[in-house]
């Protein structure tokens, strides 16, 4: 390699060190740009990872059937009741949520899902289905520290606990027999138990739900909250009992667990077919329920957080461009300041190419330096912020490559103009410059 190339980094470093203050300010712009890109991308990735983890606690092989054409119960103004059976008590539920402090039973939203649907999925005709549970939701107002608090009550099948990996800390869960017997047993979530009873053992005590007394048979072990429900702050009763207590003949949701992840799509199709037949709907587009899997949710959330991350990275990229313009400014000032140096170099034999490469290498070294410092700073900021918020930032190789790539590109692009400007100077004009 010719000496003029070998000496480039040395020359550039000398020029950078000769003007330490100016170099520092130049690098600072890039440091801020790269640090914000790295920090925001890492935080975004961290949020994505944490959401993914929460959704996967729902059970990746679970398929959920909810009433209505879309997400959420109670929005069936057009399709409500179509082809569904057993909707006679629609007027009594839904409104129950509007009576705070009544302490009375509260029905779930209007639902098209029935116990028949649940039963037809349970019959064992579906080899890919491992377990099925149907829920009736309601709530109860109980006293905590002398104040009324509303707790949610889930009427579930006994299989609910196994599908959601819930086990007891004290006492026992209710069984299928309790379902059939419509027994008045309640299993408390961990937080709810400690809210109501503190350190005392709640097992064997009774609480009032609706107008009935329920015996606490067990307390669940504390679990991590999933994205959509928090079993720690709920109580669970058999869904048959709940149907009576809340006066709701229908289910607010049915959860079907597939034998394995790869059966999920088949189970989804199967479940849809069975319930459509039950509801005597021939056109699938008019279904009064919807079937989603945890994986569907996952991909939707992935999309949302992905867009969010790109959006944040885009904003951060603006600061990178600003940093790049800073580099260009400083390099232009530097070219002007060093006009005589350029003239001298040309007088002793430097070619146009030598001058271009000298200034370009200087700009690239400055931005790479800024990129490296920015990367460290960005990682530090992401870690600290993530620790404070309570999840972990994910610093990917992609983000690092992006930062290094972008910073050297910024150096090249924004360094090019000053470098070319410097190299075009006529040697004598450069030498005469004052």
């Amino acid at each position, binding site marked *: 390699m010719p*000496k*003029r190339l070998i*000496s480039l980094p040395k*020359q550039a470093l*000398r020029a950078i060190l*000769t003007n330490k203050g100016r170099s520092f300010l130049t690098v600072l712009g890039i440091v801020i740009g790269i640090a914000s890109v790295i920090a925001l991308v890492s935080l975004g990735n961290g949020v994505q990872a944490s959401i993914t983890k929460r959704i996967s606690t729902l059970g990746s092989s679970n398929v959920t059937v909810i009433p209505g054409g879309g997400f959420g119960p109670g929005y069936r103004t057009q399709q409500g009741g179509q082809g569904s059976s057993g909707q006679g008590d629609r007027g009594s539920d839904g409104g129950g949520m509007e009576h705070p402090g009544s302490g009375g039973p509260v029905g779930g939203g209007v639902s098209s899902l029935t116990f028949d649907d649940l039963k037809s999925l349970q019959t064992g005709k579906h080899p890919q289905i491992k377990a099925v549970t149907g829920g009736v939701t309601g709530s109860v107002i109980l006293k905590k520290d002398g104040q009324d608090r509303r707790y949610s009550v889930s009427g579930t099948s006994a299989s609910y606990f196994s599908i959601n990996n819930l086990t007891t800390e004290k006492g026992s869960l209710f069984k299928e027999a309790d379902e059939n017997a419509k027994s008045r047993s309640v299993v408390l979530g961990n937080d709810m138990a400690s809210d109501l009873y503190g350190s005392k053992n709640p097992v064997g005590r009774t609480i009032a739900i609706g107008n009935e007394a329920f015996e606490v048979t067990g307390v669940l072990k504390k679990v991590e909250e999933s994205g959509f429900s928090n079993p720690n702050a709920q109580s669970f009763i058999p869904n048959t009992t709940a149907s009576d207590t809340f006066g709701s003949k229908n289910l607010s949701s049915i959860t079907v667990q597939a034998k394995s992840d790869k059966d999920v799509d088949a189970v989804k199709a199967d479940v849809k077919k069975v319930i459509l037949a039950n509801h005597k709907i021939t056109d699938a587009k008019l279904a009064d329920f919807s079937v989603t899997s945890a994986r569907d949710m996952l991909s939707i959330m992935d999309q949302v957080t992905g867009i969010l991350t790109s959006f944040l990275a885009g904003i951060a990229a603006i600061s990178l461009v600003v940093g790049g313009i800073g580099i260009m400014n400083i390099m232009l000032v530097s070219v002007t300041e060093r006009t*005589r*140096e350029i*003239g*001298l*170099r*040309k*007088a*002793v*034999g*430097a*070619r*146009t190419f*030598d001058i271009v490469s000298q200034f370009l290498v200087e700009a690239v070294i400055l931005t790479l330096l800024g990129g490296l410092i920015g990367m460290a700073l960005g990682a530090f900021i992401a870690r600290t912020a993530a620790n404070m918020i309570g999840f972990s930032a994910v610093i990917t190789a992609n983000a690092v490559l992006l930062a290094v790539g972008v910073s050297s590109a910024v150096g090249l692009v924004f360094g090019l103009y000053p470098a070319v400007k410097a190299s075009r100077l*006529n*040697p*004598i004009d450069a*030498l005469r410059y004052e």
Partner: protein
Amino acid sequence: MANMIELKDVKKVYRSGGEDTFALAGVDVVIKEAEFVAIMGPSGSGKSTMMHIMGLLDTPTSGTYLLDGTDVSKIGKRRQAYIRNQEIGFVFQQFNLLARTSVLDNLLLPTIYGPVKNPVERAKQLIETIGLTDKIKNKSNQLSGGQIQRVAIARALIMDPKIIMADEPTGNLDTKTSHEIMGLFRKINEEGATIVLITHEREIAEFADRIIRIRDGQIVVTDTGERDRHAEETH
């Protein structure tokens, strides 16, 4: 001796506001190999422009310049840079050295841009010749004016050029230092280099073999130092 530098009716015109200013209004100059020539003239006379054209730092508007027998108008920019690097050594009045850079690195500057045998050894030898061995690592801003010019002369010599061009090299120096510098140029000339020296001081010009006088972009007289002094007295 062969002609090292030959200018034939060289003109340099600056155009500003539709008006032409002649920095050089057609000059004919011949400088032979190993000659020591001083170019004298008042400021604005065009002497620096002439030297810049001779040193390939500037291009004439018209006329022919033969450097060592070659028409430089037919030489590309890259080749011109190479000639400046290999064949010509410059000493300027000011801004000769890179700021905050050591004596040794300043000397080595031309060796970045072209080949020379044993650059570092050669640089050290030259530094010894100019008597600055003890300041080899000093930065340029820690040197006196005379030391800076000596370093500049040493740098002009590092590529072992055929021609040395100096533009007012003693302009900022006291008499004693000026004479020392001129002694250095004489010695270089005796070793075979062609020297073109620009000055407005007669005392300095007298170190040369021959003086070319220029005024308003034209050669007034070109002759030996003795004859020139006579002409000056009769003015």
